[in-house]
């Protein structure tokens, strides 16, 4: 983990409030794993005050790092408008990661809206390891505008299934409907390969994914969000209720948790905000 200055080298709008920020000068992020995040702040004066947590979308050679964000408030609006050359401060890489792709399991990567980045990076890493065959992505949003970077995801060579609530792209419905359909098909085919689920998206979607995984007896990992001030386990602001201890911290114990660790406290935790975008 390092604290350093980086520069926006490209800011690509994807429509619907989504944009990809490409940063240069991120050598300290080399070796980051899918699920890890950074705390990012621009030259904003005092408003907003705190840095904003953003997941890594992709980390490439020569200090390049990509982020995918959606405008939901002041901080993300300022990021969306930051031109190439803008200076940003970065603290990272932070947090833990999803389990690495493995030849012995099939991973179902379930992404809701702007919850895509860690699963995108997981898919990229599976492709690099030559394990694209063992990963499938299920990606849902409210409308087709909430499904972004589809060409890049297909480029990884993994199977991709889409769902939109308005039916404008892929299955009409939620990504969790798509997940249930996939598991039913799997059962019919009685595939030998065990399954693993990894998910990131709005809280309600995550709890639904967790419940589905539980009912099918499948290992499941959820990437959570909470309000954060420090990102390094100091402010104790990002607490989530947990099984093994009263609270766990999204920034240092997570953001990725086994679903069984955080699921029993759904009623408490669901009062908190969740990532923008639809399921």
């Amino acid at each position, binding site marked *: *983990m*390092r*604290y350093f200055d980086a520069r926006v080298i490209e800011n690509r709008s994807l429509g619907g409030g989504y944009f990809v920020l490409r940063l240069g000068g991120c050598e300290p992020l080399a070796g980051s794993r899918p699920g890890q995040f950074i705390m990012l*702040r621009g030259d904003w004066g*005092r*408003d*907003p*005050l*705190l*840095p904003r947590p953003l997941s890594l979308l992709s980390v490439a050679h020569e200090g390049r790092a990509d982020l995918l964000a959606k405008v939901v408030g002041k901080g993300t609006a300022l990021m969306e408008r930051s031109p190439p050359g803008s200076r940003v*401060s970065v*603290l990272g890489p932070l947090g833990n990661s999803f389990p690495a792709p493995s030849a012995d399991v099939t991973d179902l990567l379930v992404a809701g809206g702007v919850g895509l980045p860690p699963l995108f990076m997981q898919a990229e890493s599976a492709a690099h390891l030559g394990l694209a065959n063992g990963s499938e992505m299920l990606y849902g949003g409210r409308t087709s505008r909430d499904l972004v970077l589809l060409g890049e995801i297909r480029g990884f060579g993994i199977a991709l299934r889409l769902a939109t609530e308005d039916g404008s792209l892929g299955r009409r419905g939620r990504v969790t409907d798509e997940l249930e359909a996939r598991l039913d098909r799997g059962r019919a085919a009685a595939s030998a390969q065990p399954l693993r689920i990894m998910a990131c998206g709005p809280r309600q979607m995550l709890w639904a994914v967790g419940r589905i995984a539980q009912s099918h007896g499948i290992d499941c990992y959820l990437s959570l969000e*909470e*309000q*954060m*001030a*420090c990102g*390094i*386990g*100091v*402010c*104790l*602001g*990002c*607490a*989530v*209720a947990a099984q093994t*201890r*009263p*609270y766990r911290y999204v920034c240092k114990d997570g953001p990725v948790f086994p679903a069984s660790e955080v699921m029993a406290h759904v009623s*408490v*935790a669901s*009062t*908190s*905000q969740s990532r923008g975008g639809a399921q």
Partner: protein
Amino acid sequence: MILGADSLEKESPALLTTCGGIEFRNPVLTASGTFGYGQEFDALISLRGLGGLVTKGISPEPRFGNPPPRICETAAGMLNSIGLENVGVEAFAREKLPFLRSCGTRVLVNFFGTTFDEYVDCGARLAALDGVDGLEMNVSCPNIQAGGIEFGRDPLVLGGLVKACRAVVRKPLWVKLTPNTSDIVALARACADNGADAVSIINTITGMAIDVRTRRPKIATVFGGLSGPAIKPVALRMVYQVYRAQIPIAICGIGGIQDGNDAIEFLLAGASCVQVGTQSFIDPASAERIIREIEEYCRAQGVTDVRELVGGLALGQ
């Protein structure tokens, strides 16, 4: 760094200072609750360069804190309601202190209890530990024996508490005052009269925020402590009120310090040293930068010893 002829000629100002019975390399400390137990920042800044650090508040037994959401951002500040979560005295001594002992800076341990006896017990145990340079009492906790009113709001209660702790703490004893009072001077006097070595002014200001979309409070406990640049004018006013009252006690200024000039304002108002709090979340290396900026200010103003600045507010014509 290339030194210009100018900076070669002028000597570095002396930053060494004393506050509440402790000598500090420079007047910049990091505030309780914003700097963990020090180790979390080891990779981010040079701890040796700090004047000192104040740990997270320690209670006799571990505490788990409040339900989420615990924090939210407000205009130029943030609200928190962490619930005094900490590892407890024993785990602190076992797991956190060894690092602090070797980190090369002054270590003050913030502590609290929920009863008189807990305060005294906690203070005595912490003061006995090697590697603890001094204690800072957090008196903004509810007194469960007195209907949950904060210990630190009533000068009489506060005075009694300070006296009881003073009797068992043979190291420098500071008291972090709550701003949620109509008479900060009376609180500071109660501390001085009962043998405290310094007052830290101020703790967070009670506030709240509402999410209009859901109509719910933005933090689960409804009320929380406001910190950040939003509170600096209030903090500065309270430091100056206590300084002006000529109470024989040293002052450590806290509240919304973001840069060297903010720190200098507190020194001019009468603080002997300052603590950087919320700014460590915004810029984890800020304490280091603030020390540099104080040095630059002194050079530019021809100040050779930072202690000259304390209480140097110019009034009148």
